[in-house]
């Protein structure tokens, strides 16, 4: 399984959100994902995939931004690098 697929599956397991089919404009807050949840999520992504999201990464606000972040993380780039 590719890194991106792992990341997507992880999001689905933890948040119950299918990023592939989710509306990119949907705000994470409306799905019950707050800043603390994101903080925990990023930590787990880093541990699970062995990547570094980057301390200065702006937190994603929408499903679309979360999907972009997962793609960048899966490609081995930090969000800051990819921005």
């Amino acid at each position, binding site marked *: 399984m590719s890194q991106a697929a792992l990341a997507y599956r992880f999001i689905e397991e*933890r948040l*119950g959100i299918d990023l592939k089919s989710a509306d990119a404009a949907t705000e994470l807050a409306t799905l*019950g*994902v*707050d800043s*603390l*949840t994101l903080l*925990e999520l990023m*930590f787990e992504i880093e541990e699970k995939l062995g990547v570094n999201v980057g301390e200065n990464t702006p937190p994603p606000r929408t499903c679309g931004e979360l999907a972009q972040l997962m793609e960048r993380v899966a490609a081995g780039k930090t969000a800051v690098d990819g921005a």
Partner: protein
Amino acid sequence: MSARRVAVTGLGMVSPVGTSAPASFQALLEGRSGLQLLEPAEAPHPLAVPAGVCADFDAGAALGKPRAATMDRYSQLGVAAALEAWRDAGLAEAPGEDRSQWGVAWGTGMGGALTFERGYREVYAAGRERLAPLTVVQAMNNACASHLAIQFGLGGSCATYSVACASAAMAIGEAFRRVRSGAAPVMLAGGSEAPLAYGVIRAWLALQVLAPGDAASAASAGKPFQRQRAGLVLAEGGAALVLEDWARAEQRGARIYAELAGFGESSDHANLVRPSRDGQARAVRAALADARLAPADLDYVNAHATGTREGDAVEIAALRAALGERLPQLHVSSTKSSLGHPLGAAGALEAAITVLALHTGDLPPTLGAAEALGLAQATGCRSASLKGVSWIRSSWSRATMAAPLVCLPRAPSASAWVWSTSMASSPVPSTVSVIINSISVKPPRPRRGSRLRFSWSTRPLLDSSCGPARRPAAPGPRRNPASRSIRRRRHPRLRRPPR
């Protein structure tokens, strides 16, 4: 502020025998055991102990995955129970109210024990340098209460009580006082516990108070009041009660399950683990005095009875000391025989069970309690102390029960005072001085000439009595077609003078 009456208008529970209050209570009436053999995963040394596990509880389904992911399991159990209670009280659909004085009082003994264990594993066993960012806010003892205040918009008191096995009983008592004094019109009260971490179990084993068992005997490992009792069974669970100013509850047409009538507490000031008869009796007397009741007004005791050698015996002695001649007429049962001991949450589960027992007229049994008559000898009490409990042998044989003897107390008498004691004085590793709490609950006053109806069948009753919230107010306990009708004796203490 003048004293107000305190109504119980909502109940919720997640227990080893059910994921809701009605399901749990029904399972108790049917004599089901929620105890099983627990073998913790990733244990550095093999370990298997009987435990009360909420195996059917799905936190993601109950709370939503994002919310569940921010919580330790003790908070998940507590918030799920509170959500049920809130909906049950019909408060979930009443937004826009001023809730700045509403509050939450929560009890837990060990808080986020599983989160602590996970953290220690990471830093010590796995040698990791950093920990998950939510470790602190998941593990802290006030996490669950904080989640509840946020969830329901409660702007008043938000306090957590941690007094070992009396934690939730203490929380309910303090919430009761706030509503009675007029400080809060509505309080959410209860407790939750999730202590089934490998290290925690090892610690309890070291204290030598856990009941042994294997796969075949685990379901009946808890033996409260039995001569062969060999210890308590650790359990997880959560329960919540919505306490509400009586007049307010009546005004909005809420269903009122029962009245919380009194609360008492005491400290043994003697020993960290050895309970004291006199200390417990003081708490019982204090609760009676607070409720302006006499021992003769009581009909049922949901005992703390954890199944330890010393604790159960002392508890019976304390009840004898406090209740005297009334004890032989009392119905006594320990639902820990089915649920195990959820430590700081015990008082909440048992208060909810007691309220339902009063509301439906069905008393939950002590599993295997035919053997409990041996308690008289085991405790040195005269057998008369248990005469009031009429044990009925049943041959219900369930595959999960190695000892399929189920005993049911008699139907309650018409006076219907119910008493629930929650005592933190059994031999448990209370690291605080021993504290005892008692809660006494009494039913709503029926209209003049009305009848209370009791049933003690084990048929399902809860579909009619614990249905969805927003049910129109009933004047008293709901009628069950199979129930017996007993004319309620007019009780002089019903007409309490104003405080």
